[in-house]
């Protein structure tokens, strides 16, 4: 397994101008590594539907690279989205799954069939252009540039160390982050999209 922070540190060097959508407990660390905050986007969440929102963004901005850092718990809630994405074939979409094998935010209970399921296999057979699996940082680092240059939709499954939270929800300390509305406003301003 790889630490999500290491994934982000390696990925950032190859990001270019890509719009990045981080999700899940693993995704919370992305802000420490991003050097282009105006292109970091919080699309909110609704039982795994951030993946769908990322697809909508990629379809609406075909000239922009869109990278989603997804989580396996979210994807399992909405696995049909893999077929939806593959059906529309967004060439600018890179779908990176940070798989920590558990619901880290609720105390680390395992997701269904956590260790046997092959997410990259499911994505590839759903019709993604290409799919990769990594549980070694060096191997990811060797391939990340090829991944970012590949024609999408590309799927990348990475086994990551869970960052389990056990404190009562009201006692958890969250680092300050920009709201969804703020990140949308900043991205639209960056791209010259009218908010009206």
């Amino acid at each position, binding site marked *: 397994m790889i630490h999500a922070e290491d994934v982000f540190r390696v990925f950032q060097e190859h990001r270019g101008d890509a719009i990045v959508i981080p999700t899940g407990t693993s995704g919370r660390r992305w802000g420490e590594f991003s050097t282009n905050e105006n292109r970091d986007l919080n*699309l909110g969440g609704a039982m795994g*539907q*951030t993946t769908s929102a990322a697809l909508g*963004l990629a379809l609406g901005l075909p000239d922009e690279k869109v990278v989603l850092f997804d989580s396996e718990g979210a994807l399992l809630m909405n696995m049909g989205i893999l077929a939806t994405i593959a059906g529309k074939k967004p060439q600018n979409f890179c779908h990176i799954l940070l798989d920590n094998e558990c619901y880290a935010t609720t105390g680390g209970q395992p997701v269904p069939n956590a260790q046997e399921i092959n997410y990259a296999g499911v994505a590839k057979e759903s019709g993604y252009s290409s799919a990769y699996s990594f549980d070694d940082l060096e191997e990811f680092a060797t391939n990340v540039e090829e991944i970012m240059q590949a024609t999408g939709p590309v799927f990348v499954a990475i086994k990551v160390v869970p960052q389990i939270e056990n404190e009562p929800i009201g006692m958890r300390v969250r680092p300050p982050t920009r709201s969804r509305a703020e990140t949308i406003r900043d991205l639209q301003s960056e791209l010259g999209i*009218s908010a009206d």
Partner: protein
Amino acid sequence: MVTQQAAVLSPEAMVEEFQKNGVTHVVTIPDSETNYLYELMKDQPWLDVVPASREGETFAIALGLLVAGQTPVVLIQNTGMMESGDSIRGMVLDAGFPLVMVVGYRGWNRHGVITDSAARYTEPFLNAFRINYYLVEQNDDSPRISTAFEEARATKRPVAILVGDEYHGFNR
């Protein structure tokens, strides 16, 4: 005995309203009553049809398109709308974007007894989410579609069109 055919809502009227209101994408799960509408939409060069796997996806895909500056509509059946409750909450109501959702009103009828629970719960569902809606049954009602777009833009909220012609359907 002469039987007069009831007035219907034509697929052309619906597509014309979409074009008039600048719609760029229709995010949809077709149902058995809307096949011809689906084919007509696919034939429009200005319109991108986005087929989804489950209705909850449609509202989130629409959010992404809205952030990108596009003008999507969601086209689903009332059963799928009810399945989409948390997506409507998190991806539409909380996000503050205008969205017209066209919803096939399965089980609805004007004159008989409604026996389909899909129809019985449709309007209570929309009321629970405080989503305003307009019933559209025939071509003469189609200006209500533009009214819905205007209201959505003014309020930055979702507005529903209930297609009460579900059992005529858009088949030919």
